[in-house]
Structures are given as structure tokens and as C-alpha cells.
């Protein structure tokens, strides 16, 4: 009702603009209001190889992010995480000696769909005045708590999984392969396009000492001859399984400007789910989708940029086919030209037109449930990536394609505000 009154209450030339902006909520948006003041990561381990418990990994990542930001950890007054992270805000607040905990938030939804949503939630809390220094974090110790890539071991299951587990559909690859089959069939996406995504990630990991696959390059022949996990995914189409912790410090743009001469602004952050995107047993209305078709529109509108303005992209790889969907749905290429545009040459940080997954991403740096890819997007704006793209003003990073609620954030320099 409020929007209707605003649209009909005005007059003259500016009316259409007012209506368009208020309908989307962009007039109360996040654009440039908050910033990522610091980022922190632990050593990234192959799953099961961390000697630290998961909680210690998270504490280490948060302390590293505070040091990076130049703030006292006791200034933290809020926490945001996702995917039922086991390391609760209350326990973290105890450990960090916080005098006051003003905000805590858990993003619903499976998988890594929350990795950019936590930035949205943290930035929203700061922008609303609910808290001043909010940590977005994720910790994973798959050795300690069990692997994502293994199937259910319970004798019986009820609900949605009763319709999948008895048919041998239990791992994430098995849950999402058929969306990629359908993408390839509907739109003629080639295997070579998926291969280019894998090659770009491994190429970038060779310059990134943090990467689990540092020193382990991948070539096209090795990709082509790698074993099937489940058709249409080969081994190198699938993300890693890792142990580690990652954290980002979100605060107001004003505070960030006090801490740094070149603050990394949050230009937009948006969750995205479509019609019945969570419908059981593979029944979302739109099936061969990364779930970004709707959210991407709000994202760009909020950021005040277009796909042409994006200088570098981190696109969450649970599986390579989902990256192809994501890039299309973010307007960075089309169904028609994806096979021509998404080549290894074009996806490289060193000279490509769409530099992609410049840390090595979930395929070759670390599967930190996508938060590492948000951090890499921040690094690209700061100019300290190990695969730095020149003159980055606008840096996009999405999370959790194909899950029921995915998310994307756009980070930028002060210049990006125009």
C-alpha cells in the first residue's frame, strides 16, 4: 500500500522513476552503505587433515579478519553464518570476550547458498543500526564431522529424502547432476564449456599458495580422461572437500573509510529463489536454473551497475555446469553464445574478458562453502589477489547455484559509486 501511495501521489516527469525505484526497494538499499573492512582465512586443508577442531578454525579466521581490518575483536557485536554452522554466536562471543552481543543470524537453505547472503544479512544489520561490527563466517571440518560427499547411513528416512536416497541419489553431485543434463539438452551447452571453467580454476590456483591444488596443475587431456563421478560430471567438474575457517568483517562505510584509504564497499547483496525453487523431488517450476534469474535483476539495480561493468567474477562451483548457468543468469553471457564466450582464454585473470574464479575457487583453492570466494572478490577490489585483474572497480561473487535459495554480492571501490 505504501508503494501504491507513493506512485500515485507524485506527478510530472519524475513519477516513473520514483515508482520503479520504490517498487524494487532500491531507495532503501545497501548500495555503498557498508563495507568489508577485513578478511581472514585459516590454512586450507584437504578434508580430515586439520589438526585444529572446527571451532578453533573459526576463531582463528575471525582473529585474522580483525587483524586485517585493524580492529579489536571485542568491537564485534554481531555474527552471521549459514548452512547450520555448528559454531554458534554465543560460544564465539564467549571466546572472544565480547561485552555485548547485539545481533546474530542464521541463513536458512542448504549448501553454500548463504555465502553471499551472510554479507547481505550482516550489511543489512549494520545499515539498520542493529550492530556496528558484524562478522560473516563459516567453519568446516569435514574430518571431524563427516563428509558432504558421502551418502546417508541411516536405516530409514522420511520426507523428501525418502524419494531420493533409496534410488541411490544421496550426494550433492547426485542431487544436482540432472539439472546440468537438462541444461546441456535444452541449450546445447558443450562439455568443453564446463571444462573451461575447471581449467581456469586450476590455472589460477597455481599462483595462489593458499590453494589446496597449488602445484597441481590441470590440463585438458587430464580433465577429459578423468573418471566419471556421475554423468555428466567428471571428477574435475566437482568441488573439493576441505577443512578450514573463513571470516569477513562488515561495518559501516564511514568506519571502513577511517580504517582504510581504499575501503571495499558492498554495492549490493541479494538472495535469490524462484517459483517453487524448494519444491520437493526435483519439482521447481524452472528446473535447469542456477536460481539466479530473479535475484540478479535486483542485484544490479541495487548496485547501480550492469553486467558490462563487472570487472571480475567469482562464481561458486559446486559443479561446473552450475557455473555456466550462473554466468548466463547474471547476464555475463547468453545461452546462445556461452560455448563461444566461456573459453579458458576468456576466463583467465591474465588477459581474459571474463576473469573467473581467480583464487581457484571451490574447485582448486578450497571448498569453504563459498565464503573463500567472497573473500577473493574483496581481494580483487583491494588489489591484492594472487591473480589480480587490473583496475577492478566492480567485483561480483555468487553462491550456491541450483540450491533453493542462492545469493550474490557485488563489491566495489568508492569510484564505482560514480
Amino acid at each position, binding site marked *: 500500500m505504501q508503494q501504491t501511495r507513493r506512485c500515485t501521489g507524485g506527478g510530472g516527469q519524475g513519477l516513473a522513476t520514483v515508482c520503479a525505484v520504490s517498487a524494487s526497494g532500491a531507495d532503501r538499499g545497501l548500495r555503498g552503505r557498508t563495507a568489508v573492512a577485513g578478511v581472514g582465512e585459516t590454512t586450507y586443508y584437504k578434508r580430515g587433515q586439520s589438526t585444529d577442531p572446527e571451532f578453533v578454525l573459526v576463531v582463528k579466521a575471525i582473529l585474522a579478519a580483525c587483524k586485517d581490518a585493524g580492529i579489536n575483536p571485542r568491537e564485534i557485536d554481531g555474527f552471521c553464518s549459514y548452512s547450520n554452522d555448528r559454531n554458534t554466536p554465543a560460544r564465539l562471543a564467549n571466546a572472544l570476550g565480547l561485552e555485548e552481543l547485539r545481533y546474530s543470524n542464521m541463513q536458512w537453505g542448504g549448501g553454500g547458498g548463504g555465502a553471499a547472503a551472510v554479507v547481505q544479512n550482516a550489511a543489512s544489520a549494520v545499515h539498520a543500526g542493529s550492530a556496528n561490527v558484524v562478522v560473516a563466517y563459516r567453519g568446516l571440518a569435514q574430518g571431524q564431522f563427516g563428509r558432504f560427499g558421502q551418502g546417508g547411513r541411516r536405516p530409514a*528416512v522420511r520426507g523428501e529424502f525418502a524419494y531420493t536416497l533409496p534410488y541411490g541419489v544421496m550426494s550433492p553431485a547426485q542431487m544436482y547432476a540432472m539439472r546440468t543434463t537438462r541444461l546441456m539438452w535444452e541449450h546445447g551447452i558443450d562439455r568443453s564449456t564446463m571444462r573451461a571453467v575447471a581449467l581456469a580454476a586450476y590455472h589460477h590456483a597455481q599462483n595462489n599458495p593458499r590453494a589446496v591444488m597449488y602445484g597441481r596443475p590441470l590440463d585438458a587431456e587430464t580433465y577429459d580422461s578423468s573418471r566419471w563421478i556421475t554423468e555428466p560430471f567428471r571428477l574435475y567438474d566437482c568441488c573439493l572437500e576441505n577443512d578450514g575457517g573463513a571470516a569477513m568483517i562488515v561495518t559501516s562505510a564511514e568506519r571502513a573509510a577511517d580504517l582504510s584509504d581504499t575501503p571495499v564497499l558492498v554495492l549490493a547483496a541479494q538472495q535469490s529463489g524462484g517459483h517453487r525453487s524448494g519444491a520437493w523431488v526435483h519439482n521447481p517450476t524452472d*528446473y535447469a536454473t542456477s536460481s539466479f534469474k530473479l535475484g540478479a535483476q535486483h542485484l544490479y539495480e541495487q548496485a547501480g551497475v550492469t553486467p558490462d561493468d563487472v570487472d571480475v567474477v567469482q562464481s561458486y562451483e559446486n559443479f561446473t555446469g552450475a557455473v555456466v548457468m550462473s554466468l548466463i543468469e547474471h547476464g555475463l553471457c547468453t545461452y546462445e553464445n556461452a560455448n563461444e564466450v566461456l573459453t579458458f582464454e576468456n576466463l583467465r585473470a591474465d588477459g581474459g574478458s571474463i576473469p573467473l574464479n581467480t583464487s581457484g575457487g571451490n574447485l582448486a583453492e578450497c571448498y569453504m562453502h563459498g565464503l573463500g570466494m567472497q573473500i577473493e572478490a574483496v581481494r580483487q577490489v583491494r588489489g591484492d589477489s594472487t591473480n589480480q585483474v587490473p583496475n577492478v572497480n566492480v567485483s561480483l561473487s555468487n553462491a550456491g547455484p541450483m540450491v533453493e535459495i542462492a545469493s550474490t554480492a557485488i563489491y566495489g571501490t568508492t569510484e564505482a559509486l560514480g
Partner: protein
Amino acid sequence: MSALAEASYLPEGLTQPAPMRDGMDAPYWEGTRAHELRVQRCADCGTHQWGPDWVCHACQSLNVEWVTVEPTARIYSWQRVHHPVHPALADHGPYIVVLVELPHADNLRMLGNLLGDPMQDIVIGSDVEAVFEDHDNGNPPYTLVQWQVTSS
């Protein structure tokens, strides 16, 4: 139209299904035991619905019924699983999972295995029919719905 499986497609030892404790999907599992394929249909707007829910997703009516539909479909998507992630499948070899759609029930989709040669060519759009696979030794006993190609 429907057929009865002579042996289970995947080995015993996988997680078995059980009806939800709140009774929402009990008619489906009772139906498979009777070798009937039951899905939801809204008594108000007539839309078929899958997976099951208490609410019609099309018109938000709570008046959702169960109906028996013809157990035929066509292949919508597929995967051939090569890497086992469960001990019961460790030595089994590849198996096929299909997502099928039911044109006579608002194109709702159901998931199952595709019977026959696990290395067979799979063609999206192929007609399939349901095969009821009884697991009388389950706790509780249950019946899975599998699919096999009727034409290509």
C-alpha cells in the same frame, strides 16, 4: 500397464523410505504397496502436485486430495552414477537415475531408477512405464516405483 519387478535394481542395504510421522505422504506409500501410483491433486483448482505438501501450491487451498494416475511418463532428465558413496553400492557398478514427467498430471516430475542395461543410451523424451519394486523385508515393508522404457 504397470509391471512388477523380479528383483531390486539396487542392492539391499541402502537407506529405506518410511512415511512421514505427520501422515502427509502416507497415501503415496500405501499406494505403491498396492501397486498404484498416487499423487496429489487440488480438489478446488484441479492442479496435480508433486512432491507432496499440505497446501496446493497453485491456489493455496488446503483441500488437497490423493488420486491414482496412469503409471506412465516420459524421461525429463537423467544421470548415470559411477562413483558410489554408500557401502552397499561399493561393488555394484554404474546405475541410472531418471527424472520423469507425467504429461497427464500437469507435468509433475518423479524420480527413480531406469531399469535395464546400466550402460544403455538414454534419450530425453522417451516414454517409460512404472515398475513396482516390492521390498517385503523392509521395516516397515515398502515398494519403490522404478521406470522402464516402452519406446524410444
